[in-house]
């Protein structure tokens, strides 16, 4: 089923001047923007209008963005991109852990926001059946056989290294994965805070990936992304 109407994008932000430029910008990029000034209004519109994606400002006057996310996830799987400030590191990570898909920092470049939005929408549409073989640049990941190759040459990965690479790849191209999410997926919930494991294993993995090391990108203080840069 394909929807021919422009995809609806809900923008939740309390600053009118943000809506003032985002609305024409989203329209020009082929989306249909919806605007909400408060968290409550945002939830109501998300429920009524079923947007394909949500751009969410964390500093809302009536409701903390972290409180809004679980409520939204209660009825919608639409990808959420956080609009946040660089000095609110903890807030950002908490929102990602709570189910947000990505983030951009204010003042953001419009091009970057649109690229993130496209990636999120793409992941959302293909999410139902993850491919058996994931390719990115020179790297080829064979999920059923638990094998990875660079330029056709097999890599010798330990089980942990494989799990880590697979977790990153499974999340989707260019999707940010928080440290906590990776730790829980690979080491289990008991090790959710042991970020030093990640530093060690990501280092080893990059070394083995050689030429393809650049596919694992660090988001300082947040987590990692997998894939060729957008």
């Amino acid at each position, binding site marked *: 089923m394909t929807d021919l109407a422009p995809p609806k994008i809900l923008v939740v932000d*309390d*600053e009118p*001047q*943000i809506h*003032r*430029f*985002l609305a*024409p*910008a989203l329209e*020009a*990029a082929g989306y249909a923007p919806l605007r909400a000034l408060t968290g409550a209004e945002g939830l109501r519109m998300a429920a009524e209008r079923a947007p394909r994606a949500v751009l969410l400002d964390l*500093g809302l*006057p009536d409701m903390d963005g972290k409180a809004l996310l679980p409520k939204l996830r209660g009825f919608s799987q639409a990808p959420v991109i956080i609009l946040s*400030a660089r*000095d*609110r590191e903890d807030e950002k990570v908490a929102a990602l852990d709570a189910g947000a898909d990505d983030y951009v920092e*204010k*003042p*953001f*470049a*419009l*091009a970057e926001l649109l690229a993130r939005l496209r990636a999120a929408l793409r992941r959302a549409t293909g999410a139902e059946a993850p491919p058996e073989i994931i390719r990115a640049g020179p790297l080829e990941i064979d999920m059923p056989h638990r094998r990875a190759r660079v330029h056709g040459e097999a890599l010798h990965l330990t089980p942990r290294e494989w799990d880590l690479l697979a977790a990153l790849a499974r999340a989707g191209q260019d999707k940010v994965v928080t440290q906590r999410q990776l730790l829980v997926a690979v080491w289990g919930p008991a090790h959710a805070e042991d970020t030093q494991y990640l530093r060690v294993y990501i280092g080893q993995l990059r070394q083995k990936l050689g030429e393809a090391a650049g596919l694992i990108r660090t988001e300082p203080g947040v987590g990692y992304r997998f894939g060729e840069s957008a």
Partner: protein
Amino acid sequence: MAEAEPPRPDPDALLALAAREHRGRLKVFLGAAPGVGKTFEMLAEARRRAAGGDDVLIGIVETHGRAETIAQIADLPILPRAALHHRGQVLEEFDLDAALARRPAILLLDELAHSNAPGSRHPKRWQDVEELREAGIEVWTTMNVQHLESLGDAVARITGVRVAETVPDAVLAGADAVELIDIPPAELLDRLKQGRIYRPEQAQRALRSFFREGNLAALREMALRRVADRVDADITGWMRANAVSGPWPSGDRVLALVGADPSAESVVRHARRIADALRAPLLALHVEGAEPPEAALRLAESLGAEVETVAAHDVPGAILAHARARNATHLVMGRGRPALWRRLTGRTLSAQMARRAEDFTLHLVPRPTALPRPRRAGPQAPPWLSWASVPLLVALATLVGVATDGAVPEGALGMVYLVPIVAAAVLFGPWHGLLAAGLAFICWNFLFLPPRYTLVIAGPQDVVGAVVFALVALLLAGTTGRLGQSMRITRARARGLRRLLEFSRRLGGPGGLPELLPAVAQEAARAMEGPAVVILPLPPLGPEEAPEPVIRAANPVDAQPDEGAMAAARWALRHGKPTGRGTDTLPDVAWRFLPMRTAHGVVGLVGIQPRAPDGERDRTLAGLLDQAAVAIERAQLMEEQARGTARAETEQLRSALLTSLGHDLRTPLTAIRGAIETLRASPALSEATRDDLLLAAEEETTRLGRYIANILDMVRIENGQVVPKREPTDIADAIEAAAGRLQRTTGRPITREVAALPLVPLDPSLLDQVLGNLLDNALKFSGPDGAVRARAWRDGHDIAIAVEDEGPGIPAEDLPRIFDPFHRASRTDHIAAGTGLGLAICRGLVAAMGGRITAESPAFPGGRGTRIVMRFPV
């Protein structure tokens, strides 16, 4: 039988042990006479310790040229002596500061009783030793038993030599170890004859005077007994500390009665020895007279007595009351120098005490032999003046008599002469009264009693009159004189108390240190009738540094202790003890520094130039110091608290500023960037959208600019960089300008109500900024059609300017905080939010111009409206 509770260690004994643990140890090599080999022994033992690896340093060792002693020094390190310049002479003395800096494990300091050269920090070497021990350095020293303070009299009787250099008994008692260096007198005399102690001609002289076998035997006995007593005391102390029950000393208490006569010091020493023998605490009491025996009381203190002074008329009664109150069992007193008539009538103090002190053991101390009369401490007016004024008073009465001669019978003229007697007795004391009585009788007899101009008394009734006159005069002189004396004491005390009361009232005031310290200086100066300074410590820079004394107040303002005196102040601050003139530390400087102490330590010093000792004045000063100490501590705590609050406010402001910068800078920047990118990247936008995006970018730029200007204003205000240029300003004009401008830009009406006002000295441009800000706010909050009004009127001594709106008003809980930086009105009403700085800037600018700003809300009936009022004093 019930089991007895197990004995517990005596807390006092344990405390004494604990106090000793942190101090350096003191070891005394005690001998009976020079030449017994104290120094030799000390050096020998020091070398043994040095060989064992201990850091031993020789501070001072006097070899007296004895070859054996010199040989013992061998390779022990010797501290160089300090050179002191005193009246053109260079004196060598032990270098206390060098020793403190060098910090040896063991310091050898010969001759504990030595008096230091003038200009040293302490007058006595034993005081140097105390400071060294305070600093944790172990000291070894030597002394001869005749230098012990309490043995002074006994030694003088035995040897005929009064020893000037003495050491308080407490020093020896506080020693951790006493080693007796003993050789039999015969052997010592042999050594002397062999010239091993003194050079031959000196030895001859010594043999004839001091070194007689009898002398030496007596001194040796004293030394042996001292050490034996000590061993005893050590055992008792050990028994108490370890809760060994045993024969306890009886509950004796010895009270020394310190009079104002020359035997006072001798009484104190005797009492000390009796107390030592009984192992009883020593008390000392002085019943107040005209001249308190300062020296004897100080001596009593140095001998470890608890000293008290009481004022009373009935001296024996007061003594007995005190003795009973303090549970004294032994009273020690001297014979004094009672007046002849007292001796004849048996009314001497000792006789009265013997009669009345039935339940006490009374010790009468022998009269000291050939002691010089003590110098009289001069009262304020020279004494001859008071004596000279007695004949004057009598002459005055004579003049009155001559003037009324013939009008009254000569018998009544005698009454006239009673006046100068009473006056002299009341003003100066009983002795003056007696002189006046004698003079008056002679004048009366000579001039008025027939036969006139002879000293012969004619008629029998005149004889009776003369006798009655003489009796009345004597009685009057005696009783009124005593009355006058106690009145003077009472008055002086009342004056002191009044001063203290006044002072405490002043201290109770709200002022901080800047008002308090000059008050303390002024009060101290008044109490001492001389200059006074108040010194507070500057906190030390490092843990090893001493706190630096800084003069914070002086009265008169140019009073300034010199550099030498400040050294005394430094020492007083560091050790919390009085220094300077009249004390044991640096007594050569002109000032005395007294610490102001509270429970938490020394808060500062008061420096005075001491005068002749005066009990009343010193007591007043002591009370003043106590009060000042507490008040200064309180003021310092308050300042500390205020600083803490200010710091917390600054912290809060800083974090609010950061939050605000994060939000208020980022949002317009995001909007501007987004608008421009959209314009560049999307060529297909409609003309209207393009215009709107351009307009948005322009508006956000303006907003950003205003925000940055606000931040800069705030920073300038916070740093105190806003200096208003005051000039006579017409308020009506200023309101007109600001309101007119806003009317033009917003197109909304602003009502003006301005009374006729004088010109006010304000900065017109700052006032314009404030008015503009307030009116802009009012327009924003009153809604699109709300009325906004600017008013100005005269309010008492103030000019008031108000800006009113009819908006929803300010919630009561926000009202106290609306002038705080970064406080924002709650944003539920969708009013364009400002930076949260507008009102804070207004407050800063108004305060810079000397005014106040307040907010009232609701300003109108019906719970609506806000009124911001500025008031400027005219």
